[in-house]
């Protein structure tokens, strides 16, 4: 077992590159479980955060502070009657949510959580991600069509038009980031690690390019990086059908859009796919512009001391969450009704604290003993933590947008997509190329 661990931890390659099928399988399982848990957490966080934006409490009954609410929801959805309309196209109706789910989960095979913490590093990583995530629209379209009802059909038409339109601007923004990987500060047609002035499409390669150039692409060629990132950040909300671009499921207009006729488990698959896609596109944005797994301020606060400080963050986050939980325990009403909840919350806090202490222990242990495995674990943990931290910021932004903005109208959405985003992203791409060639 230890050998197995060592065989993995000793490797600086991803399981896919190292052709290590067992580890690849374990990775796939970890990611699948992790994404599912993340979606559940996101569900809870969204409900609570949205509630607090809106001067209410959100779920409070199921578990302390509604912590078990996602599980209760999941159980409810699982045991709910699964209704298939009699006039629906049964097979397509049945397979549509699976396609959406498949598309949004397949993307995770190339998400680089760290330099070697990815299932595989594909040569065409970003292309693969964009392509596969664009398949999600098929699930939506099929669901809308198969329901054989007006509202889902309109929802499906809207979403296919919307996703195809925003994919264009999104793709161009991505291209300008890829272009930056090749513009290396080596002057005209300089030779870089990636060959003769050519960049890379590999997700890990993109982050490594940022590492080598000592700049997050967000800040490169200011403000071009910002603009490309902004376009991507807007387009990715439209791609995932979230507010303020949630027209395909606009409840006040189309009742529930493409999944109006869905219920129970199938409906929950759509939700799972939507949230998984949100996390996936956020991780694309993080990889392309926010330096992927790199910790903040690698230039400004450099040195091994700062490295240590930033690697402590992972444990400290859990400890902070544990402290919040314990504050919640203290503030629980002293009444026998709340005893179980108080104990549950305390247990949860304890769990968080234990994880936090474990993580801190690994970091400190590595610092003290300089053991190889501990060192590599610390490194991997820190990388994954910062990656997830950045993704979590995006997730919070999604909630924030939803609480703040009204919904766009369809023609306005299209106008923004084609008349604003597309020209701007084209312009950014061209200017990036020119600036890159001039400045190198």
């Amino acid at each position, binding site marked *: 077992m230890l050998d197995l661990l060592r065989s993995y931890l000793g490797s600086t390659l991803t399981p896919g590159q190292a052709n290590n099928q067992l580890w690849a399988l374990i990775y796939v399982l970890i990611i699948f479980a992790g994404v599912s848990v993340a979606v559940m957490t996101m569900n809870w966080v969204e409900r609570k955060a949205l509630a607090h934006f809106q001067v209410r409490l959100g779920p409070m009954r199921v578990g302390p502070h509604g912590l078990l609410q996602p599980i209760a929801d999941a159980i409810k959805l699982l045991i709910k009657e699964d209704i298939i309309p009699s006039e629906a196209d049964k097979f397509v109706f049945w397979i549509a949510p699976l396609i959406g789910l498949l598309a949004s989960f397949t993307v995770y095979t190339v998400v680089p959580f760290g330099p070697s913490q990815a299932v595989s590093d594909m*040569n065409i990583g970003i*292309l*693969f991600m964009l392509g596969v995530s*664009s*398949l999600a629209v*098929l699930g939506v*379209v099929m669901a809308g069509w198969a329901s054989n009802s007006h509202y889902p059909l309109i929802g499906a038409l809207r979403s296919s*038009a919307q996703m195809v339109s925003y994919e264009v601007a999104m793709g161009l923004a991505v291209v300008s980031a890829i272009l930056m990987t090749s513009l290396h500060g080596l002057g005209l047609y300089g030779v870089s690690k990636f060959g003769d002035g*050519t960049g890379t499409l590999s997700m890990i390669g993109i982050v490594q390019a940022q590492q080598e150039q000592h700049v997050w692409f967000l800040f490169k060629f200011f403000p071009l990086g910002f603009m490309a990132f902004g376009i991507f950040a807007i387009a990715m909300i439209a791609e995932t059908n979230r507010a303020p671009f949630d027209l395909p499921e606009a409840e006040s207009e189309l009742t529930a859009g493409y999944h109006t006729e869905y219920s129970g488990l199938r409906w929950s698959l759509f939700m799972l796919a939507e949230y998984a896609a949100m996390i996936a596109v956020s991780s694309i944005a993080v990889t392309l512009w926010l330096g992927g797994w790199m910790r903040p301020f690698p230039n400004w606060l450099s040195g091994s001391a700062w490295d240590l400080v930033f690697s402590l963050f992972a444990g400290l986050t859990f400890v902070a969450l544990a402290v919040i939980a314990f504050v919640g325990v203290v503030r629980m009403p002293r009444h026998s009704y709340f005893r179980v909840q108080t104990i549950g919350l305390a247990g949860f806090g304890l769990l968080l604290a234990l994880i936090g202490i474990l993580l801190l222990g690994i970091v400190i242990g590595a610092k003290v003993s300089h053991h190889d495995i501990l060192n590599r674990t610390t490194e991997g943990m820190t990388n994954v933590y910062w990656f997830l931290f950045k993704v979590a910021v995006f997730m919070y932004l999604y909630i924030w947008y939803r609480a703040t903005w009204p919904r766009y109208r369809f023609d306005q959405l299209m106008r923004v997509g084609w008349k604003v985003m597309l020209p701007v992203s084209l312009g950014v791409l061209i200017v990036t190329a020119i600036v890159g060639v001039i400045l190198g």
Partner: protein
Amino acid sequence: MTPVATPFFFYLLSGLAIAGGLLVITRRNAIHSALALIVTLLAIAGLYLMLYAPFVAGVQIIVYAGGIMVLFLFVIMLVSLERTAKERQFNRMWPVGLLAGCSLLALFMSVYAKGKGLFVERGPQLPESENTQQIGIMLYGEAGRMGQYTFAFEIASLLLLVAILGAVIMAKKRI
């Protein structure tokens, strides 16, 4: 990375592709045909990956499965086909068509059978990791030189422009 279980995946993917193709031309409902075509396209993308052509596979997924097929589905939904689905699906010339197809297949097979020795693996295999870069260089050129296909690439972009204009004009409300 060395591929695993190549024959297995080859037969799986090609089986999927051919089954999808069969469904495309036999389904009564155009949506089902389109879905079968998507299966075929994705299977072919897999075959490209097995042929060490990852960039083409990516293009296949993005452009075909994500773009063209969505367009197809969109159009099929716009022209509601309930009536068409109830009608006769094959035209009166179907035996001729079938015959032509079968003879074409026979022709191919005989050519392959005769020329078996021609199709062997040869030539240096480019590393997969540089596939995209090499294609990029061929399309755009490198170090100030025009690539081999730069001119053709520009023409292709012109073709797309014309196609966009044509499609927009065609789809306009009243021509």
